Each structure stands twice: as structure tokens, then as C-alpha cells.
């Protein structure tokens, strides 16, 4: 695969091939999402990281006015399970209106529960950017 083809694949992954997160959140209700999880995978934090890496670029691409913040906490101690692994949904004033526990869930599962939680519409077929 050439350098250009690889790059195009990367762009398409953001804009057109990640189907689940091609949604537009209701901008009148929400101002963004706040994620908090560990840098390390232990104690069930891997799904949160995968969700961030795989689904959030597409979310940001179709919701440019929203702010997504990721806070990662360093924790090398495997016995210490006190680090939260949560996704907070923020309203217009920046107050939390809902939260999801991401612990021990896979990235796709987190995406599904987010879809069930928030008010959204699918991106129209003609608005999807394909390269």
C-alpha cells in the first residue's frame, strides 16, 4: 500500500468508514463530552481508550462546534482500582447531564450505550465526506 493510499484510508476512517459514530448531537442540548480514564489498560480501562481512538475523531468531525475532553490518569499500580472510568455528557452550561460507566466494556459497546443516552440524528448520506 502506498503512502498516499494509506493516508486516504486514514482520512476515510475519520469521515466515512466508521459508521456508528456518524451522528450529529443536538447542539442546543449539549456542549461536549468529558472522558476520564487511566493511561494503562488494567482494571478494565482498555475499552475507553479504544472508544477515544476509534470513534471520537468521527464524532468531532461531524460535530465541529462541540468540545471533547479526555483526561487520562497515570496509575501503574494494578491493585489500585480507584481511578474512575466515566464518560460525562455536558449541557450548554457545562453541567453534567448524564454519565456512562465505561469500565469493562468494549469500545463499540460504549458507543452503543452513548447512542442510547444522547439525543442525536444520523448524518445525512449526502453530507458524508468520501475521499
Amino acid at each position, binding site marked *: 500500500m502506498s503512502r*498516499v493510499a494509506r*493516508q486516504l484510508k486514514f482520512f476515510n476512517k475519520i*469521515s466515512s468508514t466508521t459508521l456508528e459514530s456518524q451522528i450529529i448531537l443536538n447542539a442546543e442540548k449539549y456542549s461536549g463530552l468529558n472522558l476520564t480514564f487511566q493511561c494503562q489498560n488494567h482494571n478494565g480501562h482498555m475499552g475507553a481508550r479504544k472508544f*477515544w481512538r476509534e470513534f471520537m*475523531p*468521527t464524532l468531532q*468531525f461531524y460535530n465541529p462546534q462541540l468540545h471533547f475532553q479526555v483526561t487520562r490518569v497515570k496509575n501503574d499500580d494494578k491493585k489500585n482500582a480507584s481511578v474512575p472510568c466515566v464518560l460525562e455528557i455536558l449541557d450548554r452550561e457545562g453541567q453534567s447531564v448524564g454519565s456512562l460507566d465505561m469500565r469493562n466494556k468494549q469500545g463499540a459497546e460504549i458507543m452503543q450505550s452513548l447512542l442510547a443516552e444522547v439525543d442525536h440524528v444520523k448524518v445525512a448520506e449526502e453530507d458524508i*465526506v468520501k475521499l
Partner: protein
Amino acid sequence: MLSRVRTKVNALVNRNQTRCLQVFPRLSAEEASNSTTSKLSKDQLKKREIRRLAQRKAAARRAASDHPLYMPVDKALRFLRAAEVGQPQSQQTLSLTTAVISERGAPLLSGNLSFPNALKEVKVAVFTNDEDQAKLAREKYNCHLVGGTELVEQIKSGQTAVDFDKSFATPEIASTLASQLGRILGPRGLLPAAKKGTVSDNLESLLEGSMASLPFRQRGNSVSVAVGKCSFSDKQMLENLVAAQKGVKTALANQKAKRPSLLGQTTLTSTHGPGIVIDFA
């Protein structure tokens, strides 16, 4: 750097050839015919260099919009912001890289850029033993570091960190600076020198003209500058890009080369994101 490698390679090739010629003249001829890159003769290397320059020139003449990775700036920014999602603010820097195609032996492209939307405050250091000048730099222009011989000593011993982006000096301290701090400031391009126009009796005129601008210089075959943050709006980014374009064009016009250099492919990229070709020329 490349040229140094090439001379080394050349020397190796020459030595090999002479040794082979004495022992197996035929074998060396065979080797030369199915040669790999490291076994090219001096002549071939020269030809290759000319060929590559021609290729790069031809590539520079092609329109940016023909490239498969070309995008208009607003779309490029949308992709870059998406790729950069969730990263800490301080790491979301957008930068611009332009290929420079210049003749052999042309001086490196360098100049100053002043952005309408500043990325950060420009930190200026002023070296002088003249009290009046020092006072002026401190009070009127609010420079980051101002001092004379004692400041030189502090930097040399590592007490004061080298965290400024620019430096100026008066002539009486310039030679001390070069001998004491040449090793520290030289590689970073921060050493004041008369040739660069950063040493003068009248610091006021120097400071006046360049307080808000940031220096850039060519590294290898490209010029790379940080132009913004992901948090900038599209309008702010465009303003900065236009300013960068203006600065680079001015530097090109002022370059003291026999033939003017060309600007090649320009990419806009972010810290963690992909590079996207944009129209710059």
C-alpha cells in the same frame, strides 16, 4: 549532511576501485555494471543529483490541487481537528512545511514571520554592557532577559535557562558572546551576529522592527513553521497562513542566490495528525 555522506561514499568507492583494479580488473568492471547505489562513480553521482533536482523542480511546478491528498484549508482543518481530538491543548499545534528547491550552494532560506494571531509570546534576550540601552530594553520593550557579562556567565554555567526565541547584542559584547556562548547559542541559531543584523549600537531600532516577529530558517530541503493551534478558528488560521506565505515569499525575494529558489509542495499538519497538501503558492 547529505553532501558529506556523498563525499564519504565517493572516497570509499574510489579506494575500492583502485584496490580491485590492481588485483581483478575485470571483476571490478562487472561490479560497476550491476552497481548498487553506493557503488556509483563520481560522474554518475553527479548526474543523479542533477536528475533529482530536475525531478523536484518539475514536481514543484505541478499545481497543488492535482495531488491526491490535496484539500482546501477549511476541510483540512476539519480533518486535523478530528485527528487531534482529546489530546492536551498544549500538544495540538498545527504546523506548515514547505519544500524549498534551490540551486547547489545557495544560502539557506531564512527570515522573519509575524502572525496576526500569536501562538505564544515572543521571548527576547538582550546582551549589552551599556546601562542606557539595557534600561531601554527592560522598560520600553519589556524584554525577557536583559544583561551584560554577568548574564553571559549565568547562561554559560546553566543557571539561566536558554528559553528565548531571539537575541540581540551591542558590538562591545558581541565578541565575548561568540567565544563564551557560541557553543550553546550557535546550534540553536540564537547567537547575535553582525552578519545576521542582530548586532547594533542602536538596539532601539532593531527591537522596534522585530518585537512581534518569529524567526524561521530552512532545514534540509524544507522550511517548517508552527502556524497555529487547533483551538484557532478557521479565519484566524487563514490569516496566519497568509502571513506565513508573505514572510516566506519575502525571504525568497531577499535570498542572495544566482537563480531564485522555488517553493514546492506545502503540507499542513498537526502534532498527532496526518499531513495534508494545501495550496500555498
